């Protein structure tokens, strides 16, 4: 994106959006995907949510498979899944995303110092999901335009920290796979990351 002090686009949402992507083999398919949202501003209000795909390739939802979306604001989260998660390369075309079960969250909690560790836990009736990031690295700022953005359609500002290790559990059972390495704008980085203080902007029509 062109660096101008005032972005002329429309703010879509702002908040935190950390993720954990697991594989059993470095070249194999994703075996466990988790992404968390803490939204301070969106056109659909505030809220927190977690998408867990423990069986990304299966077109079924929880409890038949481990594909579930827990949220405090389902209207907001349906917007974020439709306009954002569905476009993220790791989630795109995953049958589990289309078939996941939607649950309302009864309670949720965050823990950690964001220097070494962080965790998010969400409880719904019959389902507790937990994401944990450890061995966190130094924070760095990122700003991308539509060409480089995970959705291919937005400007995005964020602070990233990679996690050397991470885990996702559903009702206490860990999802299979490990974090692995990926190239992130030319830098080798883990597939587990904290992403905080994000702002996603729909570019103005004439933005080059």
């Amino acid at each position, binding site marked *: 994106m062109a660096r101008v002090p005032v972005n002329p686009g429309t703010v879509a949402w702002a908040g935190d959006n950390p993720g954990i992507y697991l594989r059993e083999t470095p070249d194999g398919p994703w075996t466990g995907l988790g992404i968390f949202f803490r939204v301070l501003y969106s056109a659909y209000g505030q809220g927190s949510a977690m998408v867990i795909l423990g069986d990304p390739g299966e077109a079924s939802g929880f409890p038949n498979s481990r594909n579930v979306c827990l949220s405090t604001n389902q209207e907001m989260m349906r917007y974020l899944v439709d306009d954002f998660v569905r476009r993220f390369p790791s989630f795109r075309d995953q049958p589990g995303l289309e078939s996941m079960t939607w649950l309302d969250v009864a309670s949720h909690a965050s823990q950690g110092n964001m220097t070494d560790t962080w965790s998010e836990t969400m409880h719904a009736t019959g389902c507790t999901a937990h994401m944990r990031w450890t061995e966190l690295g130094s924070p760095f700022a*990122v700003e991308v335009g539509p060409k480089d953005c995970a959705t291919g359609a937005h400007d995005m500002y964020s602070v990233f920290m990679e996690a050397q290790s991470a885990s996702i559990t559903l009702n206490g059972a860990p999802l299979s796979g490990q974090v692995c390495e990926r190239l992130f704008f030319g830098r080798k980085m883990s597939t587990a990351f904290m992403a905080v203080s994000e702002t996603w902007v729909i570019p103005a029509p004439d933005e080059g």
Partner: protein
Amino acid sequence: MPLASPIHPGQVVWTGENPGILLKEDPDGPFSAIALFFRIYLSPAGRGTVLLLLDSPEQRRQYPDGCNVLLHNNKGLADYLLDSFILKLPAFAALPACESLSLIGIDESYPEGDPRSCYSEIVKAGSLDIRLTWDGLGTPTALELPAELTGGKENELYTLLIESTKPAIQVNGRQLPGNPVERVQADIKTTTAFLYFSETWIRPA
């Protein structure tokens, strides 16, 4: 100028939320009351919540004679923000109240409301029960400011600005006097009452 790479080469100083309310009784006069709130996710001094509240910015009135206080749940973070951020803003460094701040621990702090319409931060510290309210909220705008367009002129800034035209600072039920006034930030006219979310300060490489 576009970044050569999407990864910013600078060093993240701190990131979090930083809404504020600055009120004047006379648009051409000094500030009559100031509240600057920090919810910090990550900084060299750790995480925490800090509130700078000045009910008499032009006077050296320590609490409880006056309510010129720095409330915190992390004293190291409060000291860090005061020295490295607040007092580097010329408008704050010149205030007599900032020379005699009382530091008080926060017992409880939480937000209320919806930043699409009316939003509040509630802070309870000892005998102080404080409510900051931003009403008449505007359309959010994403800013990415080079150091020269920031108050401290030292670090770059990403932030989400939502201006308020009807803010209020209440201390133990008493509303502090004054109104927001117009200010210009990065050539846009806005007010001295604002929500700043997703705020990140970056030391240039």
